[in-house]
């Protein structure tokens, strides 16, 4: 299987990449790690006429300490996020979620910016970003820079609030140093995507909880968070995982089973994060 023919561009700077997006609009697609885009192009579910390869823009591969947050370059590969000491110290939930992505070969190529821009409800990173209360910095040639909070990023099935001319430049993660957290991923085979997954991060006064593959978009388990804030115990709050969500049914799981998984995994995640 090979993709439909396309015009290939390899800009040498972010500005050049943004100019290409401005020029070609929604005919163009950025190529970062290519581990979501290329499979879709091979299956001909995506057929951009211009592919803008930003994979070599190594200035956008970094993890920096910027005070009360971590700043992670959009092109930082999963493997580099997974093993970075700053991530381990200040956002271990992100390291764990990243370590569960695909397999080592996938993690050598895929990037954090690509995973978030792809906005896949089945993806592990979006749930971690939601639970950590992170944000992304996006830039376009005409519009300059803006910051999108995780809660405003995921708008529909594989859809984000990014404009076609915008590129994610940086991901910002508030530090959660020394606070309880847990990541749960349930799948049948080692390298698979989650049938259901849970990111739980303790914060002052409760926890932020986000679910994988329980809705057309990555989603926060708001009912669980509110119950915890009102003093419910983990087991009681976890019963509300899935409330207000519309999980899909597929070969791996029907709606009832997915909802059951969400409850059990949320309870496990909360308890492992140190919430009784």
């Amino acid at each position, binding site marked *: *299987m*090979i*993709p*439909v*023919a*396309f*015009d*290939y561009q*390899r800009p040498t700077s972010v500005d050049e990449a943004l100019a290409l997006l401005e020029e070609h609009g929604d005919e163009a697609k950025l*190529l970062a790690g*290519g*581990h979501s885009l*290329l*499979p879709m*192009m*091979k299956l001909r579910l995506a057929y951009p006429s211009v*592919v803008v*390869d930003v*994979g070599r823009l190594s200035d956008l591969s970094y993890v920096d300490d910027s005070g009360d947050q971590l700043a992670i370059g959009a092109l930082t590969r999963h*493997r580099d996020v997974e093993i970075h000491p700053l991530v381990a110290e200040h956002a271990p939930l992100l390291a764990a979620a990243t370590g569960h992505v*695909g*397999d*080592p*070969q*996938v993690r*050598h*190529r895929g990037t954090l910016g690509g995973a978030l821009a792809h906005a896949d409800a089945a993806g592990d990173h979006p749930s971690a970003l939601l639970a950590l209360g992170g944000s992304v910095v996006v830039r376009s040639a005409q519009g300059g820079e803006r910051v999108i909070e995780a809660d405003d990023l995921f708008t529909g099935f594989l859809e984000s609030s990014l404009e076609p001319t915008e590129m994610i430049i940086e991901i910002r993660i508030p530090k959660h140093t020394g606070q309880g957290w847990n990541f749960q991923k349930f799948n049948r085979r*080692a*390298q698979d995507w989650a049938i259901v997954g849970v990111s739980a991060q303790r914060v002052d006064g409760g926890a932020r909880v986000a679910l994988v593959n329980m809705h057309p978009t990555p989603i926060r388990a708001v009912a669980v968070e509110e119950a915890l804030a009102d003093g419910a115990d983990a087991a009681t709050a976890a019963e509300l995982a899935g409330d207000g969500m519309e999980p899909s049914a597929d070969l791996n799981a029907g709606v009832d089973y997915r909802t059951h998984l969400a409850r059990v995994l949320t309870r496990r995640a909360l308890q492992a994060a140190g919430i009784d």
Partner: protein
Amino acid sequence: MEITVDVNGTSHTHDVEPRTLLVHFIRDIAGLTGTNIGCDTSSCGACTVHLDGEAVKSCTVLAVQADGQRVTTIEGLAATRADGADGMHPMQEAFMNCHALQCGYCTPGMVMASVSLLDEIPNPTEAQVREGLEGNLCRCTGYHNIVKAVLAVAGGER
């Protein structure tokens, strides 16, 4: 588009369509057919090669993405022996000695993934080997002997 890829120390310059997959470049243009295509959907790992020293699935990389980079395939692995001596790479020897292959279809990818694994975790536990090879499927061996082979190279069984 004209690209130059160093494959196993030999520079290959060719005019390719941007949609050419790296695995097709390796097999059809460089003529190195040791790298197999199993699934073509980034699931099986049969096409695993090293791109700038790291294991990647070459069915999910465009040849143009490897322009100017270094690729090592199973044919070039022996030449990367740390001691520079002739003969197979220790991982290849261990696969042979531990009977870590039957039909052999997964083997080139499995060996390349195993070498990359030990580059990152020189002294893995058995569990780390099993997890580290999760991207590579073998339909014959049941994996046990593959895991033994990797552990043998890592410094003996434990």
